């Protein structure tokens, strides 16, 4: 560790992995409810499990981003963090707020939770991914602003690199676009239109900047390739992300009441969205092939390469699959969307956060890399989780194609539930794949506790 204050990243990474585990457990509950409809009903209805599943994902990725920033920024800026104390305090505030929110979902009926938390004063709840009560949303803004203050002050007092600049733009964008979660007009079309300014402009916009910056940082570290080369790639990739992704928002504006012109804008621009992800894959492999050093952390390199490949497959290929308006007319709101969502989130954001953790955690624990045995186990967990998510995606895609056929294309369309019964085999297969994913995650966690073998000192 080059700077003492980087150590504040550690609890963020630990919390991220803990919440990730919770996310997967609730995912398994939902997967089972797809085939055993009354499982855990009425204790944990599907919608509650889903809120916990998706909100935990968002929160642990935010923990991952913040931890990564606290680790990365001092090293890039060549100075101690502006205020390590503030980072520690924010950690506990964010963790407690997150835990209280999840407990609220699980223990209190949602309508009661809404009434208790001031939703009648400013109604923001009950919209997908933005289910958080008002105090939680306000808390997210406060934590985000304090975090950004801390990071920005650190950058300002130290060396300014392209990586920290891109990371800062991404993180500030994240905070700014979240403000649209407070805008909830009673006109559903307007509500949906600006809801995407949070959701799309996050995951297909500013988060890609964060992803690029983190990946570039780790690639510099593990390959030793010249910074100028890596930062040039970074700029080209994120330029393409925003050039395609901003107007690409239009692929959500096909069927929600918005004008027909969006069918063209959305189709053309979102069809180009795979380009930056493909470049990310080429980038990662290119840099590793041109490496000027053999970094002992093989696992981190594997995660970095995996991020390139899986984000291209999940976000790029599976996104393109249903992004053209004539296709999306049939696939919109089916299991095809779910298939894409799972692989895109895993391939892009889960994997980049794990890449960062994989690189930084050994250093935070006082060594350049973990022991051979620990790394082998970590790489096993990489393959098991990654192959599992590929199968989850393939089974959901199969389910989605059948669903579209039976319910929307057939000359005698079936009802929703009758269709669901027909495709339950694929839901079972998805659930089994999910169990394998959990096994991979348990092995991943176990890899942190493997001792023995020779370690490389930092």
């Amino acid at each position, binding site marked *: 560790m080059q700077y003492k204050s980087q150590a504040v990243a550690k609890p963020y990474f630990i919390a991220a992995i803990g919440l990730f585990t919770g996310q997967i457990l609730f995912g398994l509950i*939902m997967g089972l409810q797809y085939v055993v409809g009354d499982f855990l009903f009425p204790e944990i209805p599907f919608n509650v499990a889903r*809120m916990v599943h998706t909100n935990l994902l968002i929160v642990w990725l935010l923990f991952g981003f913040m931890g990564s920033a606290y680790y990365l920024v001092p090293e890039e800026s060549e100075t101690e963090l502006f205020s390590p104390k503030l980072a520690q305090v924010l950690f506990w505030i964010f963790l407690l707020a997150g835990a209280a929110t999840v407990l609220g979902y699980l223990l209190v009926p949602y*309508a009661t939770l809404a009434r208790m938390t001031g939703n009648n004063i400013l109604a923001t709840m*009950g919209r*997908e991914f933005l289910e958080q009560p008002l105090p939680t949303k306000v808390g997210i803004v406060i934590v985000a602003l304090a975090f950004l203050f801390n990071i920005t002050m650190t950058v300002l007092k130290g060396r300014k690199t392209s990586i920290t600049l891109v990371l800062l733009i991404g993180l500030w964008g994240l905070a700014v676009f979240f403000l649209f979660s407070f805008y909830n007009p009673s006109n559903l079309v307007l509500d949906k239109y600006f809801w995407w300014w949070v959701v799309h402009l996050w995951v297909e916009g500013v988060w890609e900047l964060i992803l690029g910056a983190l990946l570039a940082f780790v690639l510099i570290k593990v390959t030793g390739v010249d910074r100028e080369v890596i930062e040039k790639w970074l700029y*080209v990739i994120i330029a393409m992300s925003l050039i395609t992704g901003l107007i690409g928002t239009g692929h959500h504006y096909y069927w929600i009441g918005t004008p027909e*012109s969006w069918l063209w804008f959305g189709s053309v621009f979102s069809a180009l969205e795979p380009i930056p992800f493909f470049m990310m894959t080429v980038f990662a492999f290119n840099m590793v092939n041109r490496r000027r050093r053999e970094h002992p952390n093989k696992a981190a390199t594997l995660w970095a390469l995996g991020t390139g490949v899986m984000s291209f497959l999940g976000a790029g290929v599976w996104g393109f699959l249903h992004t053209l308006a004539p296709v999306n*007319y049939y696939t919109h709101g089916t299991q095809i969307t779910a298939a894409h969502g799972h692989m895109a989130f895993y391939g892009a954001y889960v994997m980049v956060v794990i890449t960062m953790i994989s690189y930084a955690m050994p250093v935070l624990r006082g060594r350049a890399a973990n022991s051979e045995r620990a790394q082998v186990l970590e790489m096993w967990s990489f393959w098991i989780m990654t192959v599992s998510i590929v199968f989850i995606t393939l089974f959901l895609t199969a389910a989605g194609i059948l669903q579209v056929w039976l319910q*929307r*294309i057939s000359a005698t369309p079936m009802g929703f539930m009758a269709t669901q019964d027909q495709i339950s085999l694929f839901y079972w297969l998805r659930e089994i794949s999910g169990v394998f994913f959990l096994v991979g995650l348990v092995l991943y966690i176990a890899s942190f506790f493997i001792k023995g073998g020779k370690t490389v000192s930092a």
Partner: protein
Amino acid sequence: MSATFTKSMARNIFYGGAVFFFLLFVGLTFDTMQVLPKRDHRENITPEVVRGKHIWETRDCIGCHTLLGEGAYFAPELGNVYKRRGPEFIKAWIKAQPTGAPGRRQMPQFHLTDAQLNDLVAFLKWTSEINTNNWPPNIEG
């Protein structure tokens, strides 16, 4: 990438591209806002519709159902449920939940009053009249 293409050129493409396409997006948004009133029929958003949307949100309906294709994929599309089932069926259905049929997906009982049920139906009726470019492909949603 070739040496003649420098980092500062790449940076300029990023800044220029980001600013240009964000402004274009804002422009398209402005244009959309001009056209929307003809498509969403906002003149029909009555106090019942407003209250109905609030009930829709505070019961987290989106956690199981889709509405105009967005939401969860666990339960039927409701953007066109007013046309598919009609108001009386919707109200009776909500009142009858959960079915308790073993192994079947269950919808919670929300204890809505008759007035609340009417508000929710008003919201679903208004939603079903939005111009969605003919989506969904058929009445099954």
